[in-house]
């Protein structure tokens, strides 16, 4: 789920960035530092959408660096337990399949794949229903439900299930 929130960060800036472009430098450094990172509380920072305020700079003794407290608006992405998510399958094996939704790594174990889908090995391993009508393989798009999440420094791990109504393949690359 996406959220638009305000976060704050103390930005350290080298004196060479002072002057007319101070603000631009501050913002571009902020974007570089923050976008694409994860935090346990907020999830994945997708994009900074605006600057709320830049506080008074504090000169660091000895270095000349200045620390600015910056409040900024950003869109964050964080999956929640119970949430329905669409994801792209990255790997299929006998244990289940792995899928990705942006920075989120999801594992759907074969315990949580409907019982009528069976694993087929081969150079394109997949899970297929007995009548062959539904197939999950690499690059398939699936709709799944999150039953567990954990946020790491750089990735978000999730446990997903497709063992429920309206879950499973939404777009099969083989037939597309």
């Amino acid at each position, binding site marked *: 789920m996406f959220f638009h*929130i305000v976060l*704050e960060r103390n930005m350290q800036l080298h004196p060479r960035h002072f002057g007319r472009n101070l603000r631009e430098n501050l913002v571009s450094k902020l974007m570089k530092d923050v976008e694409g990172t994860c935090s*346990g509380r907020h999830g994945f920072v997708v994009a900074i959408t605006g600057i709320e305020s830049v506080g008074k700079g504090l000169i660091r003794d000895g270095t000349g660096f200045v620390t600015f407290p910056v409040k900024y608006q950003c869109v964050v992405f964080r999956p929640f337990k119970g949430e329905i998510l669409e994801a792209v399958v990255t790997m299929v094996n006998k*244990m289940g399949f792995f899928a990705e939704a942006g920075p989120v790594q999801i594992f759907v174990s074969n315990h949580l794949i409907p019982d009528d889908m069976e*694993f087929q*090995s081969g150079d394109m391993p997949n899970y297929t229903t007995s009548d062959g009508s539904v197939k999950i393989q690499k690059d398939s798009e699936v709709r799944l439900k999150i039953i567990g999440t*954990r946020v790491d420094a750089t990735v978000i*791990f999730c*446990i997903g299930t497709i063992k429920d109504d309206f879950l499973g393949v939404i777009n099969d690359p083989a037939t597309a």
Partner: protein
Amino acid sequence: MSLAADSPVHSSSSDDFAAFLDGELSSASSAREEALDEDGQSSSPANEEAEDENASCAPEEEDEDEGDLESKRLKRPRMEQLEVAECFEESATDESLVHNSEASTSKEICTHPGSFGGMCIRCGQRVAEESGVTFGYIHRGLRLGNDEIVRLRNTDMKNLLRHKKLYLVLDLDHTLLNSTQLNHMTAEEEYLWSQTDSLQDVSKGSLFMLNLLQMMTKLRPFVRTFLQEASQMFEMYIYTMGDRQYALRMADLLDPRKEYFNGRVISRDDGTQRHQKGLDVVLGQESAVLILDDTEHAWAKHKDNLILMERYHFFASSCHQFGFNCKSLSELKTDENESEGALACVLKALRKIHHTFFDELEDSLDGRDVRQVLKTVRKDVLRGCKIIFSRVFPTQFQADNHHLWKIAEHLGATCTTELDPSVTHVVSLEVGTDKSRWAVKHNKFLVHPRWIEATNFFWQRQPEENFPVSQQKNEGSVPPNAE
């Protein structure tokens, strides 16, 4: 100062989006204080670390998503400390409420078969990181418990046997290829620098310069045909003592189209014991696994699954490493024979084993054991030969303990210490011994001990005339793989 107004990243679309979210979220802003408290206490240490220490939240925004519902949960024992969003369960529809109560009853009975990112792969609950075996080679953060491994092996076995396949675990160094550090290359090998193959399309080449690893790698002759053919009979794994980066790079060279290994590349970093290779990280039943490796002692627990390979030494550094003071294949500008080399011979043996396993055995499929088949097929190689050794082992040595004696017996030969007319081969290092002279006189085969070793590696009785016993003690200057 108003810096926000002219922020360069402000766009009208994100404004709309922000407004929408703000509207959605402001409905749940009552119980901020409690939620904040709760949040402060509940962050797990792991989470604390991961968090950007500079980013602090504006409280109005931060906890709205978890707000009042979260506070109701304060008295409940919290199974998952981090799950700030468990409120979603309660705000969800009736239908999903039913599912969630199902989930919470199944939580008590879930045996937690394995974990991904520290969460149970079946119920999603947090589990202790230490339990089970890591399967980092399949995916970062994946661990499986022993029962689950057994279960997966059983179901997979059925699937595989239906496709008439077994498992094959392949070593890299000296088995499928030979690598050398660039700075270990000799002057006589310098010509190789100009002969390396393109990395654009590796499927045609066999000699590669890997700048990142500071290495040069030579694939063993016949390896591409070998993999292609073996993949029809086996689900294949790579298992190397090299590190992960090296293992994956080699897998790219051997399997550029990713047809053979599909993530089944196991490196030193993935094993469970130092300096040992084990089948515990291989998701196949031991009764259906064959191993190709040049290093016997790496597989102490799985000798019965092992097909020992003749070492492929292409580079000089590799010869020196194993104590051969001779010119390497690279220095002699030659190579192993493509169609009669070690891999071609082993492929024939694998075919035979595969055929025996699926087409000749009478008992039910799941009662069959490839280790038994391996033994039987090997016993055919020297069937009918009766061997006597002369001056091969020290006199006080217990003869039937010697590795050549054992190999000969594994190959189906009978070994003896008594000369009699039924002896077919005299294995000797010298022509001058009594037994050697007896062999010449009675028209028996007189062969060098290497005949047994070669027969063992090639799975085929080698022509005796290629292994003569010379007048002088012959410690040759021939490299081990030369034709």
